[in-house]
């Protein structure tokens, strides 16, 4: 069976910039595809190609067996014909309309009774009850975000496009809403394409990752696969230097969480709103390496993991040590420290990391 969405389209701008939207969504139903990359990498343009707000100069976009766009045959379905929900980064709520009128804006084909019923459902679903008569200017950022999301969902679209849905909010709201957003998308069972430049947001919300840089798609696939095996250094640089592995939450007590990753158990601070699984993120500079792995009484580091050195890479005055402790882990140490310990490939060592340096991102 063909993938649900196949996009291989390109938009060329005057001045030579080219942006491509090249990825797939394999199946209908709930899944979140994250377009990830630094600002200016073309994520938003790729999303606008999907929406039909930009016309492709090359290639085609097919959704559920229909050609949305095919440059060779001159096909370009306008946004009105694509049956999608689009949440722009700046929300773009209609300032002259009330919350209820904004939510019901796309429902002109329904009669007043059905429209009111649908708007009522959205008000309940998005916790906007009591705000229906307000205008967008009288809402907080979080309320505006929910109205914009509700407006995009009102027509029960077949594909949802979210452009940096949380970036206009303050940090605490972002963290709270990430979980809520993914739960909501799962309940609605709509395939979603989401643009973000925030790695934690990508990890928490996404199932599939499309890494973009300078208008090009560098790599795409299952989110864990992309973090595990970046195809080239450019992708690794965009993803950051962290080790990212998926683990199972075993126990939570006293604000500390035990997560098992393969055979290893890692202790970390509880970030809150954890489910059964989480991504464990560790920065290379937070991992120390020691010879011998007996219990050491003289350290505050909570995690001591037996490991084997699989590779050593020179990076200027630093050395990147690739470790296998049941899962791949990277450590960044000075060249001098490496020489003093006489570390070499194949050595059995102990990887040490402070619980405070382990960053957990909920992912269910």
């Amino acid at each position, binding site marked *: 069976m063909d993938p649900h969405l196949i996009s291989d389209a390109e938009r060329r701008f005057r001045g030579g910039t080219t942006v491509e939207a090249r990825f797939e969504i394999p199946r209908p139903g709930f899944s979140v595809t994250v377009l990830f990359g630094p600002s200016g990498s073309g994520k938003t343009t790729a999303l606008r190609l999907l929406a039909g*707000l930009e016309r492709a100069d090359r290639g085609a976009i097919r959704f559920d067996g229909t050609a949305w766009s095919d440059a060779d045959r001159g096909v370009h379905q306008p946004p*009105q014909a694509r049956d999608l929900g689009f949440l722009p980064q700046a929300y773009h709520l209609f300032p002259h309309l009330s919350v209820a009128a904004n939510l019901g*804006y796309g429902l002109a*084909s329904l009669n007043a009774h059905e429209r009111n019923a649908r708007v009522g459902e959205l008000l309940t679903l998005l916790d906007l009850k009591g705000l229906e008569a307000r205008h967008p200017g009288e809402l907080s950022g979080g309320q505006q975000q929910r109205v914009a999301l509700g407006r995009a969902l009102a027509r029960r679209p077949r594909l949802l496009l979210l452009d940096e849905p949380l970036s206009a909010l303050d940090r605490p709201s972002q963290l709270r809403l990430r979980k809520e957003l993914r739960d909501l998308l799962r309940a609605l069972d709509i395939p979603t394409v989401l643009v973000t430049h925030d790695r934690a947001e990508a990890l928490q919300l996404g199932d599939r990752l499309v890494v973009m840089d300078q208008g090009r798609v560098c790599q795409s696939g299952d989110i864990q696969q992309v973090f595990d095996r970046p195809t080239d250094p450019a992708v690794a640089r965009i993803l950051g230097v962290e080790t990212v592995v998926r683990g199972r939450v075993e126990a939570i007590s006293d604000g500390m969480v035990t997560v098992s990753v393969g055979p290893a158990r890692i202790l970390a601070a509880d970030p809150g709103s954890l489910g059964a699984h989480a991504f464990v993120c560790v920065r290379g500079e937070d991992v120390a390496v020691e010879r011998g792995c007996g219990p050491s009484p003289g350290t505050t580091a909570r995690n001591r993991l037996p490991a084997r050195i699989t590779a050593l890479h020179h990076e200027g005055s630093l050395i990147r040590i690739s470790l296998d402790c049941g899962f791949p882990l990277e450590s960044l140490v000075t060249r001098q420290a490496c020489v003093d310990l006489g570390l070499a490939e194949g050595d059995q060592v102990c990887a040490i990391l402070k619980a405070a340096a382990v960053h957990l991102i909920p992912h269910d």
Partner: protein
Amino acid sequence: MAPGMDWQAICLSLELATLTTAALLILGLPLAYWLAFSRRRWKFLVEAVVAMPLVLPPTVLGFYLLMAMGPRSPLGRAWEDLVGHTLPFSFEGLLLASVLYSLPFMIQPLAAAFASVDRGLIEASWCLGESRFRTFFRVIAPLSWAGILTGLVLSFAHTLGEFGVVLMVGGNLPGRTRTVSIAIYDQVQAMDYAPAARTAALLLGVSFLVLTFTYALRRHQRKPWTLI
């Protein structure tokens, strides 16, 4: 009723201004939309033509209109065959001339208002399934109310006060083409200063009132001090 004032001319001017404004609104909405959103390379030519009446002397515009409406032009002949009388020196001819003469006073505020509507709002409407036509009436027009109001008021006031074009195209036929500005001119020529003063004061008052009303409604807009 004040004695000596030419009420027939005043009523004719009001009728002309109302019909001209209505015609300009119907013509102006699509034309201003095109000027605001078209990406044609030759758009600037249309913009220049629309702005012409701002700089052209009314007598020059009137002269060409007279030539275009005359019995020797295709337009003039077609009109005469159709309705039985000539276009110049008739109310219809005056209406046509007024529409052209006041065109920029409607088009420019409309086009400026349409162009300043956030593109993202228009795209949001498209993505919610609304056609370009419906998006215009549901998003662009409501958000451009100040520009539309300005266009209506300026067209009305400008038509009410026009003189040169009326004289060239309409002449001075009581009840058909004698407008209030021509009545004032006639009264002054006849040294009839008292009614001229009263009529002039009436025009001054009306103009001041409509502009005050417009600025008052617009006072919360971003640039309330520029009408165009």
